[in-house]
């Protein structure tokens, strides 16, 4: 996994190869049923930001860039090719020919410009607005003072020129984010806020039916620009399906993909069932579950206390509580992320040493504090495990398990939440780049009222280093940049504002009739599966 | 000397569900002297029970005055009225409903004493014992609950409670209607004894004319919220001056098979008090009704040539009074 990703970064070339037409001889046709517990919310790419609608949107829309299926390798998508100016500030994208929206209208460069500007326009209320900060003219546009982004120009129908205000190595990832996906202006303007219910894009599938609270049907886009894609003719998303029921239906062969994770209650049993051999695919996730300690609140303002907490927690036992569906973590970055320090050992589990550290910090008898956590399973259980471990070294943490919105609010208030278990609200990377784990959650920018830096950790020196790293847009300096990020995260661990607990693993359960590369089923950017590339084995029969 | 009780133009109306108003008591005047018993008779719904509650200020009057020893009860402040209640008491019809089923008899009888803060606990206990004896109940009755007693005994409890404060006036609202014949006589005798012993005055409300005749000095006949006749008992029964009184008297079956009086049963039933007929309210059922009865409401007036103060609300009172006596 790690290796694959390193290769991907290297591929960031001026003339990237086209995504090859699917060369495998997987059959096309057929359909599959995917179940979800929650209703699917908006499919507007500028707005949708759930893990659930994230990949559905990816199948309906396209952006300038994309990733190779099953990998984190950036490749041009709507763009045929792009060039980067020497100062690292100007990107020129050349659109592929003959791409049309689902309504039949050909895609032009104006659509790209409109789509990005729409995401930045405050009227859109896009949660992705902030991702575009590096584009020239962002501030004026984001404040609603300018009509559009001065940094985007469309010299002709097939060329988009984007100027940045500062060189940024993550920019191409941003162009692969849903928020920058192309939408047809006339449809958006006609439907207004209802566009998310009736999405029209250029993607591999088009939405044909949406019965709120019951099901969605996606059908193949016959005019999709990549030949042989998608494989399936139809995907039916059945919503309101309780995961344990969905699992039983899966066992009855009524369902093809469990959209939600396998319920913990039955995880062990399912994994041990020989009948499902090969049908449950395990993969990594760009996720870290961590415990924040508010460095502005005593006693967590003492680094020794924070280190003691890091040493007090038995991560192996917590991993067991989640049925081994995670690997213990010792640093903010997940193993699949470039910059992960493989040789770093982290803080060992050592309650005695933790006690000694606490004593040294002036808390020989420990102290009382509070631990916030979200109230959905398994988070209260994990929090209780942490609570017990802390109690063993004398830290008596009162546990507050609350609704998501309340915990998030508490985290963003100064001097409110001494400790927060991030589960359920934790960081899943928006794109596979180490910088994505820093800004809002560990940088000074996030350590403000209403911010997401719940540790209130602010290290100016590291902020400067981060800026430096992100300015390294030259692909040749890729390795150097990654190394810089690695150092940043290791230095953070010295200050220990977090106690990283684990990195979640994904387990995708598929029916016997669905096939494809294993990597398609644990695709790092498409969750739960890469809808465009999995196929039905009984297609055409 | 002021009379014990003076009722002037007393009125009370209730709203109905349909938005109309029922004039339950519609202009009643009378006086009651000390030591006197006034009987009030009438059929159900004529307003006699409301009259009792109006006098006691349990229901506020819509108009009119209730002067007790010259003091207008309706104008008394709440606290003063509560104190005044010592002098006015009531005995209810239903000896079960009027006793709190969750209290022991001794608590029920002692309640007025407690309310008015009379005596110590020990004194009250002795008073209760005396009262029990006075109304003819065994001494151990105090420890028991109302439902353990028969109707007659419960009525004795009600009477004991009413006389506990030595009131000046007792209003008895159908006190014997719910009782059996043999018990009824006992209670009537008890009431008579108490009156003699304690110098009580009574307003005795009943639908039973023979009982009223037996206990009353004067009798008032009520029909649809008004007094239609008021006279001393003997006169009223011997020479009724209102056709309704006549009809009532003649309708009473006497326990005497040889009694073959002609029965003057009035046809139909009392009209709804919500829509009383115009003119004389009795005219639709009156065998003597003439045109004037349908148009003019007769006032309660002295009957010419009547004995004492014989009042009747009939245009032809003198004519009626001259008819042969219904009691035969």
């Amino acid at each position, binding site marked *: 996994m790690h290796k694959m990703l390193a290769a991907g970064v290297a591929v960031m070339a001026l003339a990237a190869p086209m995504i090859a037409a699917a060369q495998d001889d997987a059959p096309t046709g057929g359909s599959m049923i995917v179940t979800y517990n929650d209703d699917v919310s908006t499919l507007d790419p500028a707005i949708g930001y759930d893990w659930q609608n994230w990949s559905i949107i990816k199948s309906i829309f396209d952006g300038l860039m994309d990733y190779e299926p099953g990998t984190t390798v950036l490749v041009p998508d709507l763009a045929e090719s792009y060039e980067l100016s020497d100062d690292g500030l100007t990107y020129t994208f050349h659109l592929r020919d003959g791409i049309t929206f689902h309504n039949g209208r050909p895609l032009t460069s104006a659509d790209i410009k409109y789509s990005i500007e729409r995401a930045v326009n405050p009227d859109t209320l896009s949660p992705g607005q902030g991702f575009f900060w590096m584009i020239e003219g962002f501030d004026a546009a984001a404040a609603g003072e300018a009509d559009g982004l001065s940094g985007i120009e469309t010299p002709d129908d097939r060329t988009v020129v984007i100027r940045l205000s500062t060189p940024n190595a993550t920019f191409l990832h941003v162009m692969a984010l849903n928020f920058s996906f192309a939408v047809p202006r006339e449809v958006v303007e006609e439907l207004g806020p209802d566009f998310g219910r009736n999405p029209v894009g250029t993607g591999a599938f088009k939405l044909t039916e949406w019965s709120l609270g019951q099901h969605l049907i996606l059908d193949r886009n016959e005019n999709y620009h990549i030949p042989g894609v998608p494989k399936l003719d139809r995907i039916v998303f059945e919503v309101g399906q309780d995961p344990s029921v969905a699992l039983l239906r899966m066992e009855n062969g009524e369902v093809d993909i469990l959209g939600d994770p396998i319920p913990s209650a039955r995880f062990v049993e399912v994994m041990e069932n020989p009948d499902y051999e090969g049908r449950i695919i395990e993969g990594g996730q760009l996720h870290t579950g961590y415990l924040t300690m508010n460095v502005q609140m005593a006693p967590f303002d003492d680094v020794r206390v924070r280190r003691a907490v890091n040493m007090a927690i038995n991560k192996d036992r917590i991993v067991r509580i989640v049925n081994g569906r995670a690997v213990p973590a010792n640093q903010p970055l997940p193993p699949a992320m470039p910059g992960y320090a493989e040789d770093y050992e982290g803080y060992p589990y050592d309650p005695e040493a933790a006690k000694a550290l606490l004593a040294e910090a002036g808390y020989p008898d420990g102290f009382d504090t509070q631990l916030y956590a979200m109230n959905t399973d398994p988070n209260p259980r994990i929090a209780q495990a942490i609570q017990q471990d802390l109690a063993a070294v004398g830290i008596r943490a009162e546990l507050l398990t*609350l609704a998501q919105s309340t915990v998030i609010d508490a985290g963003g208030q100064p001097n409110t939440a001494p400790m927060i278990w991030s589960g359920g609200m934790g960081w899943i990377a928006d794109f596979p780049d180490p910088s994505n784990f820093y800004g809002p959650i560990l940088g000074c920018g996030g350590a403000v009222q209403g911010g997401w830096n719940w540790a209130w950790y602010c290290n100016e020196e590291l902020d400067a280093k981060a800026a430096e790293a992100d300015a390294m847009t030259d692909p040749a300096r890729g390795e150097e940049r990654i190394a810089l990020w690695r150092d940043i995260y290791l230095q953070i661990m010295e200050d220990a504002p977090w106690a990283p607990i684990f990195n979640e693993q994904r387990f995708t359960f598929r029916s016997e009739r669905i096939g494809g590369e294993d990597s398609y089923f644990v695709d790092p950017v498409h969750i739960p599966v890469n809808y465009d590339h999995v196929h039905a084995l009984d297609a055409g029969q | 000397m002021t009379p014990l009780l003076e009722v002037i133009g007393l009125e009370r109306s209730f709203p109905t569900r349909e938005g109309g108003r029922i004039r339950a008591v519609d202009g009643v005047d009378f006086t009651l002297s000390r030591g006197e018993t006034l009987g009030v008779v009438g059929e159900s719904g004529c307003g006699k029970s409301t009259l009792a509650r109006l006098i006691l200020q349990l229901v506020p009057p819509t108009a009119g005055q209730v002067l007790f020893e010259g003091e207008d009860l309706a104008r008394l402040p709440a606290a003063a009225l509560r104190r005044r*209640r010592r002098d006015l008491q009531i005995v209810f019809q239903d000896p079960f409903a009027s006793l709190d089923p969750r*209290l022991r008899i001794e608590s029920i009888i002692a309640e007025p004493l407690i309310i008015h803060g009379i005596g110590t606990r020990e004194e009250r206990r002795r008073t209760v014992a005396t009262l029990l004896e006075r109304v003819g109940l065994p001494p151990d009755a105090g420890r028991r609950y109302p439902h353990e007693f028969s109707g007659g005994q419960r009525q004795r409890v009600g009477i004991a409670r009413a006389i506990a404060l030595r009131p000046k006036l007792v209003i008895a609202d159908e006190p014997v209607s719910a009782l059996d014949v043999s018990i009824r006589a006992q209670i009537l005798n008890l009431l008579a004894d108490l009156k003699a012993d304690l110098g009580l005055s009574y307003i005795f409300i009943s639908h039973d004319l023979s009982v009223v005749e037996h206990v009353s000095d004067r009798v008032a006949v009520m029909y649809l919220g008004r007094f239609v006749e008021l006279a001393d008992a003997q006169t009223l029964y011997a020479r009724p001056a209102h056709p309704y009184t006549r009809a009532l008297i003649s309708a009473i079956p006497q326990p005497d098979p040889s009694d073959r009086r002609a029965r003057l049963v009035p046809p139909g039933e009392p009209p709804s008090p919500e829509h009383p007929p115009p003119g004389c309210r009795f005219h639709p059922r009156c065998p003597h009704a003439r045109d004037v009865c349908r148009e003019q409401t007769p006032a309660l007036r002295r009957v010419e040539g009547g004995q004492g103060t014989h009042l009747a609300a009939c245009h032809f009172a003198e004519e009626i009074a001259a008819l042969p006596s219904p009691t035969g």
Partner: protein
Amino acid sequence: MRLILRSPTAVAGLIVIGATILVAVLAPWLAPYDYREQLFEGLTLEGAPLPPGGDFVFGTDTLGRDLLSRMMYGARTSLIVGVVSNGAAVLIGTLLGAIAGYVRGWLGTAIMRFTDLMMAFPALLLAIALAAIIGPSFWIVALVIALVNWVQVARVVYTETTALAEREYVEAARALGAHHLRIVGVHILPHLVPTMLVWATLGISTTVLLEATLSFLGIGVRPPEPSWGNIIFESQSYFTSAPWLVFIPGVAILLLALSFNLVGDALRDALDPTQRGRR
């Protein structure tokens, strides 16, 4: 009391309640394990809870804690919440209902309109919002439940009080010059006791469950303190793979609620002096 003992179902109920109280009180001595301790041997290697039997009579929960010990300590919470908060609800409801029913007038109307309003208000939402505003604690649960559950009591008491206030013996007391306070205290409230008792007992099951829901939402009992409700909710999705985690506390709640209901029913009959007089 003798009358209650006459009903075999009520006796069974009393036994269950008595046993629960006993277990709750003696929990520190009876519990085989520390109810908070997440035992290493309490989970399988894959992290699954252990079924009943062996060292763990009721099995273990998903954190490897002994279920029996947690049930014993949980009885405390459930009893306290059931009795205290439901009792408070009944008291509030009775007070408001009795005032509205006795006083009538604008005050009575205002109280009853407010009751109507509360009746139509989704209780769960109110509970969540209140707890979020005031901040979570065990006593908040009690308060929230009381605030939610008084409504029906108030309505019933209101109806009864209006009927009681028209009884002849109340009129008799007024005729005697009794003050309103005395009338309410002596002639009305005692008659409401059976209703109150019935609601106090009938409401217990709803209360215990509401506590469970609130605890689940993170409003109530702080983990790792157990209550029967939060034991269920912590593990409700395990009903097929670890049914004991749902059914043992579920049946406990059912039995306790049932017992309170049966005893309440018998109590109502027994409190009626028209029954008592029959010797």
